[in-house]
């Protein structure tokens, strides 16, 4: 229940920069996910907030108080690790009351508090079990209860779901969100799973190469990625490279494709057009390609239940161009592999990002 401000935080190991002067602001009771590929620095940032790593430069403030120099034990933060963090020699109850116990609370108080938290995570009946007698999901619930038992200002979750199987992961994810809303504790969750990040967060912070690329709500991250990395990393996106030309983008084969967003870029500028599969419509080729549409071949159709996802081959465009289209499965029979099609979309759908000189490929 406190704000968190990281200012100008950087860290490098043996000349390798892990975090490059990074700023992050969190509001009270907010849940932020640090999302990025492995090695992007997200865990380092979390551990700097927790106090396990001292940053080379920069400060961390919690609720306006500078905690940069404080040891982890003095920061009033609860942390949940990836796995195996429960003390193996203590029952669930003893694990949860550990924090109050070392804080010197009366035993009845400790047990009462621990009982409430085990209730909160739905494990009241497992209070006397040892960690090895519980499933991975139960262990993580106990770890969550234990972290909350100290009434932390900030809750830090380091890939808490990544060691669990898919079904448990989904359940626990919802439960973490519910508990976070109930307790209103400011929470940082590190993950490399974008679906997890999008579904659970108030805001998502996308990281790569030690930098924060974009901090925004899940829908903004999905609809308006700040740069090409975010667009590629979040969700599935078709990519069409070309040159901005008014409210359209010209492909290398001369095709002009509609994209309102291109007006933001100078005409003649190299850009990449990003299209989500749900925005792409397909028609069977009937002789000619209408203006504003793109000729393609169906390469593969993947049945996903209610939807079928079609992957397209773009024979006239460079290799790194690609496009996907989602359609209701009942229409999929028309689009078997090898079928010639035309792809088109509403002119407001594409997201257009200028290609940096260094990235141009």
């Amino acid at each position: 229940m406190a704000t968190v401000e990281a200012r100008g935080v950087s860290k490098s190991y043996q000349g390798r920069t892990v975090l490059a002067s990074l700023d992050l602001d969190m509001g009270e009771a907010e849940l932020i996910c640090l999302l990025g590929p492995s090695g992007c620095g997200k865990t380092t940032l979390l551990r700097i907030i927790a106090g396990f790593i001292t940053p080379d430069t920069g400060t961390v403030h919690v609720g306006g108080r500078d905690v940069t120099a404080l040891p982890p034990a003095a920061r009033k933060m609860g942390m949940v690790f990836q796995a195996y963090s429960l003390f193996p020699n203590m029952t669930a109850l003893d694990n949860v009351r550990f924090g109050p116990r070392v804080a010197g609370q009366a035993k009845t108080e400790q047990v009462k508090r621990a009982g409430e938290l085990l209730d909160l995570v739905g494990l009241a009946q497992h209070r006397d079990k040892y960690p090895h007698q519980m499933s991975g999901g139960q262990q993580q619930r106990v770890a969550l209860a234990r972290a909350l038992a100290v009434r932390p200002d900030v809750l830090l979750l380091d890939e808490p779901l990544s060691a669990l199987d898919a079904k448990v992961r989904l359940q626990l994810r919802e439960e973490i969100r519910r508990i976070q809303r109930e307790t209103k504790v400011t929470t940082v969750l590190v993950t490399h799973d974008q679906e997890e990040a999008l579904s659970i967060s108030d805001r998502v912070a996308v990281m790569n190469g030690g930098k924060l690329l974009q901090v925004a709500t899940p829908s903004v991250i999905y609809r308006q990625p700040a740069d090409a990395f975010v667009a590629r990393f979040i969700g599935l996106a078709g990519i069409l490279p070309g040159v901005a030309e008014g409210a359209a983008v010209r492909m290398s084969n001369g095709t002009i494709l509609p994209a309102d967003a291109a007006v933001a870029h100078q005409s003649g500028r190299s850009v990449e057009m990003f299209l989500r599969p749900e925005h792409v419509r397909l028609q069977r080729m009937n002789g000619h390609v209408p203006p504003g549409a793109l000729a393609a071949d169906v390469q593969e159709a993947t049945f996903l239940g209610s939807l079928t996802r079609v992957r397209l081959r773009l024979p006239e465009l460079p290799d790194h161009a690609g496009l996907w289209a989602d359609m209701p499965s009942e229409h999929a029979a028309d689009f078997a592999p090898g079928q010639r099609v035309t792809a088109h979309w509403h002119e407001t759908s594409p997201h257009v990002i200028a290609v940096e000189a260094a990235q141009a490929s």
Partner: protein
Amino acid sequence: MSQAATTPLRRDGVVHKRPASQGVAGLILPYSVIGLFIALAALFMAAPTVMLAVQSVTDDHGFTLKYLEALGGDNIVVAFRNSIVLSIASAAIGVVAGGLIAYFVISPAMPITLRSAVTSFSAVAANFAGVPLAFAFVSTLGTLGMLTQGLRSLGVDIYGLGFSLFSMTGLTIVYAYFQIPLMVIIITPALLALRTEWRESSENLGATSGQYWRMIGLPVLLPSLISAFILLFGSAFSAYATAYALTSGNIALLTTEIANVLSGDVSSSPQTGAALAVGMIVVMVGVLVISAAFSRRASRWHK
């Protein structure tokens, strides 16, 4: 052997726990090798042990308890006491010193070269025992040892101050030379198995380093510490060469007493030696039983 190509998959797709059948002929060799090993163990380990037990309760006239009763004799009680005290003392030193060394050596702040130097030296020192070790210490701390002489030239006469390498104290110091590295080797894996998550969680929850060790580190390590202590106790308890070369029998220990009986240096009957040996085995079994009980209590949280 022609069936060797038989697939290990059953028709229902369940994998056999054992290799597919080799035919009866193919099993003769494996079972005879296993049989030979067990037979040798029975003949040369189990049978001699049983013989000792039998011999310790028989004389020319049949069953007797007099040899076992003779274990209550003064000098034998001294040997038992010396052996047990020496074993406990050197094991305790080994557990504490070896445990501390291992703890510091695996610290992430430890230079990696120093760490591997300590590991390999421990392997050597734990195996450098017996007569050579005894003489290494005679060369160092004996009456003419280099260190003794060096200290004497500085005006410190350690023998004049009451120290002797050929005493219980001296033996304990020498035994520590193999006990400590033994402990380093045994306990290092257990220390490495302490997860950093436990330490970080406890820190994060507000515990001090002392609280971490008292409430998590030591309780988790306790079963390993108990079994390490037992191993060290056993290694000192059965040590013979070091003590023999060092004390020439001046200090009565069970191992040297038995050897004296066996080599006819003293005029006791072989049955006395057998009774002593049975006594040693009983002590070892007793120590194991007690430690198993402690260990069970200490690891009740364990799988």
